[in-house]
């Protein structure tokens, strides 16, 4: 009995202890805090205030006022960092965030202006020190904003901060080469590329090295380009905020036409892209160590006889109307000229197995790079067009021929 009493009292004690320990603190939820709206300013009004009342000087808002807008470009793809583009029906503006993150394209937001600063940086008006947690109220999501369709020449400071679309534009031929990327992902530094219309008007496309598409090759075609408008000094700049709205896949236009062949030796190879070398006699070859192609039979005054061909891959010109060849040369020492030949029946192996016709381009006479002048290829339109550069060196003299930027386009 005594044991039973003990056991009972122990059990009661246990129960009490467990009950006591069950009293975990239930946390209170803080009372809801709201941001006052105050007077409402349009973005256009902000821009006007900056130019007039604030006389282009930074202005820190201290009273209750708000601005409404829809986010048109966010940080998601890494091209923008702590920068957000927002616009309303009147104008656009860049928001500079105190901390990265939290605003997304399509958010309709109200910015409580107290604590933010209106200022311009290299000509770009921005609302600085926006604390997303403290200044921003989101009202709606996924609000579509139609880009303003403009031409390259219409992109002026008045369009700052706005979402625009350009039609019939393309990256310039130097960049739309299948090699050049949007930006420098390796060094993570920003890079400017150039977009042009069919009249040759150009605009800068600036992309951060941190963008998740920085290492992607630029699209080579022509089409529409949707972006937000920024500015740096007197340069207007476009920022691609959504690659799905960059649709450059149509046929190219303009002065340089559609590019059919490009050999710029930037990759250090003479044979990349399907080019071949044929050493008909001697062992002298083409090299490409300095970003251009080069051949010489002169080694410190010792001359080696040679006949060496650099032959392009087969180029299909059958769909073209007026194909044109351009390249550049420079030269040193004395010796034989460089011969530029074309064929429509070469299929590999010894050059002698095919019929070759010589062109008469302008060749360099000294170390200055000399454009060849456009060489019309219309007579050679075929499905198997080949281009060859032939150098014949003797054992008594010899030149160094340098060759670069071999391009065939169809105008």
């Amino acid at each position: 009995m005594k044991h039973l009493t003990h056991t009972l009292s122990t059990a009661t004690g246990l129960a009490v202890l467990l009950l006591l320990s069950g009293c975990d603190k239930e946390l209170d939820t803080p009372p809801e805090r709201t941001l006052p709206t105050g007077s409402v300013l349009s973005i256009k009004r902000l821009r006007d205030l900056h130019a007039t009342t604030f006389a282009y000087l930074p202005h820190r808002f201290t009273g209750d006022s708000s601005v409404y807008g829809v986010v048109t470009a966010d940080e998601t793809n890494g091209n923008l960092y702590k920068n957000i583009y927002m616009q309303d029906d009147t104008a656009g503006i860049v928001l500079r965030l105190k901390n990265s993150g939290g605003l997304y394209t399509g958010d309709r937001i109200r910015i409580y202006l107290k604590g933010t600063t209106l200022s311009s940086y290299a000509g770009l008006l921005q609302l600085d020190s926006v604390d997303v947690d403290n200044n921003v109220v989101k009202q709606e999501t996924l609000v579509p904003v139609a880009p303003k369709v403009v031409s390259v020449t219409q992109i002026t400071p008045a369009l700052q901060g706005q979402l625009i679309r350009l039609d019939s534009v393309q990256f310039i031929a130097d960049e739309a080469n299948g090699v050049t990327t949007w930006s420098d992902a390796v060094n993570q530094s920003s890079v400017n590329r150039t977009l042009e219309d069919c009249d040759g008007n150009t605009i800068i496309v600036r992309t951060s090295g941190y963008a998740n598409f920085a290492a992607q090759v630029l699209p080579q075609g022509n089409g529409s380009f949707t972006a937000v408008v920024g500015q740096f000094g007197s340069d207007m700049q476009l920022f691609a905020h959504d690659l799905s709205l960059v649709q450059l896949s149509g046929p190219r236009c303009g002065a340089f036409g559609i590019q059919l062949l490009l050999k710029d030796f930037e990759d250090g190879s003479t044979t990349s892209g399907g080019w071949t070398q044929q050493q008909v006699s001697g062992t002298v070859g083409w090299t490409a160590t300095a970003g251009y192609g080069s051949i010489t039979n002169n080694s410190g005054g010792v001359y080696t006889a040679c006949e060496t061909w650099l032959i392009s891959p087969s180029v299909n010109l059958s769909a073209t109307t007026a194909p044109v060849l351009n390249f550049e040369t420079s030269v040193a020492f004395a010796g034989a000229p460089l011969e530029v030949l074309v064929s429509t029946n070469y299929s590999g192996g010894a050059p002698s197995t095919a019929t070759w016709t010589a062109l008469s381009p302008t060749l360099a006479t000294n170390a200055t790079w000399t454009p060849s002048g456009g060489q019309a290829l219309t007579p050679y339109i075929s499905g198997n067009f080949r281009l060859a550069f032939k150098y014949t060196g003797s054992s008594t003299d010899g030149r160094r021929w340098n060759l670069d930027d071999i391009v065939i386009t169809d105008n």
Partner: protein
Amino acid sequence: MQERVPVYTVTSSDLESELGSQDISGILQSSRDVFASTAGLSWGPARFRIRGLDGENTSVLINGILVNDPEAGWATWSQWGGLNDVTRSMEIRTGLSASRLVFAGIGGYSAINARASDQRRGTRISYALSNRAYDHRVMLTHSTGMMKNGWAVSASASWRYANEGYAEGTFFNAAAYFLSVEKKLNDRHRIGFTGFGAPIRQGRQGLAVQEAYDLTGDNYYNPFWGYQNGEKRNARVSYDHKPMAIVTHYFTPDEHTSWTTSLYYTAGRDAQTNINWFDAKDPRPDYYRYLPSYYTETDPAEAARLTEAWQNGNAGQIDWDQLYFANGKNLYTVQNADGIAGLNITGNRSKYIVEGQRNDPRRFGLNSVWSKALDDHTQLTASVGYHDHVTHNYRVVDDLLGGDFWVDVDQFADQVSADPAVAQNDLNRPNAVITVGERFGHDYDMHVRQATGFVQFERRWQQVEAYVSGMLGHQSFFREGFMVNGRFPDNSFGKSEVQGFLHYGLKAGAVYKLSGRQFVTLNGAYLTRPPLARWAYLSPRTRDAVVPGLTTEKVSSADLSYVVRFPRLKGRATVYWANIADQVWARSFFHDEYLTLVNYTMRGVDQRHTGAELGLEANVTSTVSVNAVLGTGRFVYTSRPQASITRDNSEEVFATDRTVYWTNYRVGGMPQTAASLGLRYNSPKFWFISLTANYFADIYLDPNPDRRTAEALEGLVVEDPQWEQLLEQTKLDNAFTLDLFGGKSWMVQRKYRIALNVSVSNLLNNQDFVVGGFEQLRYERMDVDKFPPRLSYLFGRTYFAMLSIGF
């Protein structure tokens, strides 16, 4: 020989007051050996570790069951925290020794005896008042002893509580329960059941950088809490509860033989909360960019503003109201939510949440030990054991902090890859909309299976006693993922390859009796040990890739002791040597630029621990005793490990096989030298008082391995200041503390034993003693001070007073 090699059982009640009063798992609370008791009681708070060894080197047993976590190696003492009355009976041995219970690690073992019939008969009620981790403790225990009807019952419960502990913003709320029943079936067979558990909720204290301590003027500044609606709230709350049940069969076929077999099951919750955030600013108040030093050179005005906010505002604490405010108006539409095309969910997306990081264990196993006295001089012991362990590792949303949901995508992957699948944490449920109680982030089981057996042979001669024991085991482990991670779709889901390791151990030792009162003992051990599953994976949260070249660890150790047992002088002097080779070392740290955990894993980590232990206890008079204790060692790394660096949210591997020049760096995190001098007065009138002075030296922070690589030093020459800064190991200051203990007991009505025990630690209130910390793994090569070490200070003067009644 059992009685020759010191066997420590806890007896003196003044020592028990320390048990569990700090949540830090005491490897050794107390013992009769003056060295071991001083190390546990007076040096424990300074993080002294006997022989500098980690918890995985010490085996912890309850009723003969090994309770070291098979995944992590160590035993979690908080699992039975608050059950001091019934876990007090403990056999502790440090270093190498024979054991009829377990083939222990080189650190020794602690064997708790929670058997009902071994609990002291009677009832004990105690109340304790303290100002350490908790303020109040009540405990109630009743044990029947073995009754005439063949039953023995023991029950205990306790509650420990602090609204706020010693450090600001911490709290403590823990219960504990225990029931043990034993039935004597007949003279040969007994059956016992023991079940216990200790649910605990504890608000933690964080380590901060010195700048934060200086700014707040408080060396116990705690970055983990902040005000929510005027009340203090802690962001790092551990809430654990891992109950265990053991059924034991005690079989004594004859008077020379015992055969004990136990079956057990344990399962529960091991959880710690933390703040998580997405596409928002770091909410941790002591983030390095929120400290004035970040702006000292670039923006002195901002530095001054922050200094002011830290010193006179709440900049040093979490602003919970602000997190609610931000969450409450972050309208967001999740498109194709939960992977369902066209399902759009709109609501306030939480930018900040409190998540629970869970490592929930479940384990069953059995252990059987047979021991027989073959003759008067010979004892043979054999044992087999099997453990099947699973840790369920996952994250769960505990509090959305005013938002409506959390979206389970990885922030950084979102920014580095244009492919939206890459950002998904679970491709089986893309764009998962997570609410309170749902799992997210990572979710996997770690399975560990252990089978071991050992045999021990002991023999006693006239002047010599000796033993030899051998162990053979097999351990296997594998990962089972429940999410298809978008970064690692091919090796995150399902069961991984099984890693299996055969391991063995040998141990031998002898005692030579110089006389009846002087002994020399010599022990040696060599054992191999499987790598711990917890460190064997490069990034277990995201994928099943293991550390390349996984192999067993090789552990060897020897010790030589001289023991005296004179009536007025007892003592022991020991020299020891231990070598642990081929270890895996893994740590993860948050990198704010990569927005992820970076995993730093090394293999081939060797370390050597050598040193000496001295403990002397002299009875100067019948009432006054003096003791002198010294532990001094040299614990160093002895290899050049190979490091791999990976990250959780990308396939990018930062480094493989990077050589770490770690040889002769000190193993950090503990004083390598400690000394004490104690004076005790024992009154014949049942009271005592003792004063102990402690001195600690050779305290280092564990070196950040990456700072000791050729890669870290690239481009620097010896004359550059960075060279020295990168390579030099942080050595902490030596320190002195004073501890006071006292107690009195009364017998009332010849029935009630009343005892009052008081301990005061750090009597001189030394608040400048840095007892630990770590060099941050994140570092800046050219500006080493940008990420200074995080430090932890010894609590100032604390007390623990307990009144108990036994009847």
